[in-house]
């Protein structure tokens, strides 16, 4: 099967090209709107909707589908207001280049931070509503009746007094010529018919028969394949390589340097490129970081725990004074390691470069970030660049802010103008050239008065800042502080701490490394939840209180967090004894504006941990597709518990030591606990995310239960280092 790029882009190019770019640039034309057409000639009814004569509704998606179900949810949002036939919906991605030409008509492409639905629900619903109004008006005009006498449902417009009917496809042409209305009231949530229902995913069929095309599968006429090796020590460079040693191997077309830091082999087939690269002698200038060992990093973090200077993330009262005056203190140190995303589909990108055009096909979480990388690496202006988004085999934060593989692919393609080159990373390259979950230590100290009442808490983080490396401008604005480090324990915002304590200090000693940190599913909530939620249990024990009761005393001002925690406590039967041999743990957090909690039951025998049951609750405000939410929640335990039990990257001689799944394992089906999901819809103005929040409560709920089972506090991740195995 050949993936034809013209198919993927067809509906986006024709509209602007046919009109010479005038309308595409958003210029006002003197005689009312001119129809913008998809390549098959069907009219746009606003930028989000194209309607074909056969009533097929094409919904445009700027966000990327990487498994989280976001396109189905977004289609539900548009369709709810559009009142179209759900069974005749197809979706497609606008290209970033086209969006740029049209003044970012499709808004933000970034698909991370669990933002896909929660930060675009309003404007995509409005897009659907505007299109509906235009279609109804077109029908009313055709009949010569007031639009107020017409209703739309299931892609049919009905004139109520006469009973006349017409389908969307029949009036789309006329509707496209109507000035889009500015203000269209959106439905009251209580009137939703499609939002909130477990609508079937739009993208399942081709994922069970091998037809779904991922970046790895792309085929273009005349395409060659490339394999690449970056210097294994971050920051190192290529010194030399002897291309003549592999140049004559079968299929090899070119051996080339990629920037200062990498070498690639381009061949007819990838396997030829990969085997040639393995045989290619490369001399690296590894630089000073080649001396760095894991122990050096740990020592640096340990020192940060005692450092005088630290950035404050959350503060109330005077924690240090309260702790100094406390009759009793408990203190504990925790650790969370580097972890790779390990997307099932390794990084890849395909590029074709000529002096007039640079095109890239890439599975990306952020089409605009990919587009920016194309501009920078090609040196061409925006109107000569384009990005075609392909389905992602997982993203988890690796494919959004970081476009290193795109830059590499263009760098290769520029050395072979006119030839499309598909660059594929091996799993080894993928794991050793990651942008890792940041490494972090934490010391927590809690105080109590003589009667056992809580007096104050100091939580000191020591470790990597992501933003310092990835968004330095934000850190500069914050006078050196990385606000993202405090996800889940912040003083305000979408990751605010849901315990109100009289004396509190949460601060961060920033300690960077040559190993680059990155966004990761959930990212800083994951370690912060382990630190705070396990320590809440430690403090509860010191106070002689039940962990849930202990938490409740701080949660009065956080009713939605409390409701979510109470929901899991009630469902698991917290106040009743656990079944014989089973032990319980609980954790809660607010993340990405959703409130999440988990409770589990597990048993431990001979260091083998069997998780029998997990109850997880989430309150995202609004549940657009409960069936997909359940899948994201249960899937979050696979990601979160893989991280807790199995996954750690370490550095040896400056390079990442674990390079494939045999040393960086991931959970298997046999280890999968039964997950029951409770969805609470707290409503409100602000919508919460789904893809990431639940991950963070997986590990602390399980760690707290393991303590109950064993009497041992495991404070460093992963648990395999303690000999604990998940069965």
């Amino acid at each position, binding site marked *: *099967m050949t993936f034809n790029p013209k198919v993927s882009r067809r509906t986006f190019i024709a509209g602007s090209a046919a009109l010479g770019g005038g309308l595409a640039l958003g210029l006002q034309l003197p005689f009312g709107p001119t129809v913008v057409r998809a390549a098959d000639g069907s009219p746009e009814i606003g930028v989000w909707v194209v309607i074909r004569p056969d009533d097929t509704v094409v919904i445009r998606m700027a966000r990327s589908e*990487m*498994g*989280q*179900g976001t396109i189905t949810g977004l289609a539900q949002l548009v369709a709810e207001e559009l009142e179209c036939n759900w069974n005749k919906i197809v979706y497609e991605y606008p290209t970033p280049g086209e969006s740029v030409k049209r003044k970012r008509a499709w808004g933000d492409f970034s698909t991370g931070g669990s933002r896909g639905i929660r930060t675009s629900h309003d404007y995509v619903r409005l897009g659907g509503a505007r299109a509906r109004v235009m279609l109804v008006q077109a029908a009313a005009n055709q009949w010569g009746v007031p639009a107020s006498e017409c209703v739309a449902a299931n892609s049919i417009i009905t004139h109520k007094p006469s009973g006349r009917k017409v389908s969307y496809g029949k009036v789309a042409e006329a509707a496209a010529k109507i000035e889009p209305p500015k203000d269209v009231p959106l439905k009251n949530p209580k009137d939703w018919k499609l939002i909130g229902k477990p609508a*079937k*995913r739009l*993208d*399942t*069929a*081709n*994922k*069970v*028969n*091998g*037809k*779904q*095309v*991922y970046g*790895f*599968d792309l*085929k273009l006429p005349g395409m060659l*394949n490339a394999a690449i090796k970056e210097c294994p020590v971050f920051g190192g460079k290529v010194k030399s390589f002897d291309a003549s040693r592999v140049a004559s191997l*079968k299929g090899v077309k070119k051996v080339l340097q990629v920037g200062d830091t990498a070498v690639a082999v381009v061949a007819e*087939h*990838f*396997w030829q490129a990969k085997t040639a690269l393995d045989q290619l002698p490369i001399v690296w200038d590894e630089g000073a970081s080649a001396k760095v060992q894991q122990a050096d990093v740990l020592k640096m973090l340990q020192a940060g725990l005692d450092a005088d200077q630290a950035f404050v993330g959350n503060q109330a009262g005077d924690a240090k004074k309260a702790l100094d005056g406390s009759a009793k203190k408990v203190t504990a140190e925790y650790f969370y390691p580097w972890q790779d*995303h*390990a*997307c*099932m*589909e*390794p990084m890849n990108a395909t590029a074709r470069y000529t002096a007039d055009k640079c095109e890239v096909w890439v599975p990306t979480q952020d089409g605009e970030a990919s587009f920016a990388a194309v501009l920078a690496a090609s040196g061409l202006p925006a109107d000569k660049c384009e990005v075609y988004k392909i*389905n*992602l*085999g*997982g993203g*988890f934060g690796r494919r959004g802010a970081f476009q290193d593989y795109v830059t590499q692919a263009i760098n290769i393609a520029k050395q072979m103008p006119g030839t499309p080159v598909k660059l594929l990373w*091996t*799993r080894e390259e993928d794991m050793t050239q990651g942008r890792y979950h940041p490494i972090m230590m934490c010391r927590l100290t809690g105080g109590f008065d003589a009667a056992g009442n809580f007096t104050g808490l100091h939580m000191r983080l020591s470790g990597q800042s992501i933003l310092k490396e990835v968004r330095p401008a934000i850190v500069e604005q914050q006078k050196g502080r990385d606000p993202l480090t405090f996800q889940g324990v912040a003083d305000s915002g979408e990751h605010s701490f849901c315990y109100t304590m009289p004396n509190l200090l949460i601060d961060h000693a920033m300690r960077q490394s040559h190993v680059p940190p990155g966004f990761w599913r959930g990212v800083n909530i994951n370690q912060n939840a382990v630190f705070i939620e396990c320590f809440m249990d430690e403090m509860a024990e010191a106070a002689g209180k039940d962990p849930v009761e202990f938490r409740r005393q701080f949660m009065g001002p956080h009713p939605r967090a409390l409701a979510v925690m109470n929901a899991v406590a009630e469902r698991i039967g917290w106040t009743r004894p656990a079944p014989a041999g089973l032990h319980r743990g609980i954790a809660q957090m607010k993340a990405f504006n959703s409130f999440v909690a988990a409770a589990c039951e597990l048993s431990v025998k001979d260091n083998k941990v069997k998780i029998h049951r997990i109850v997880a609750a989430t309150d995202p405000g609004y549940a657009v597709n409960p*069936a997909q939410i359940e*899948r994201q929640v*249960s*899937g*979050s*335990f*696979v*990601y979160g518990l*893989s991280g807790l039990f199995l996954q750690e990257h370490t550095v040896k001689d400056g390079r990442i030591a674990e390079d*494939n*799944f*045999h040393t960086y394992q*991931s*959970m*298997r*089906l*046999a280890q*999968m606990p*039964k*997950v029951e999901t409770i969805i609470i819809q707290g409503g409100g103005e602000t919508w919460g995310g789904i893809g990431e929040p639940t991950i963070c409560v997986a590990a602390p709920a399980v760690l707290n239960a393991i303590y109950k089972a064993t009497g041992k506090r495991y404070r460093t991740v992963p648990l395999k280092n303690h000999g604990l195995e998940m069965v």
Partner: protein
Amino acid sequence: MKLTINGKTHDVDVDPNTPLLWAIREQVGLTGTKYGCGVAQCGACTVHIDGSPIRSCSIPAGAAAGRKITTIEGLAAGGTLTKVQKAWIDHEVPQCGYCQSGMIMAAAALLKAKPKPTDADIDAAMTNICRCGTFQEVRKAIHAAAKA
């Protein structure tokens, strides 16, 4: 070398040491079978050879010559989806979907060997890695396919 895939014999020009996975993907052009690790850990490359599930990244193409190879594309003989594939659709198992070809091939082989698998049978047979975390739905879909 001749490779018999999905009932069709392909004459492929490939070094016999090339992993079967890459011969299937690059020489034959069937890309439903995925690369995930290259070391037989993740199972994304699972195909059937003479009916048994095999991780095609770790067997040389030469060793598969003359044997009956089935890939995800050949599972639905004559275009009719198998019970496993139907169950996968009904239970909406795939998320990103990248691992699902291998997952389905492993499930199909299990159901052929054990038409009514227990949870323990499923645990033992389904060792594929899925990073999205579809395991709960995989188990449900296998049980559903067994009942269908």
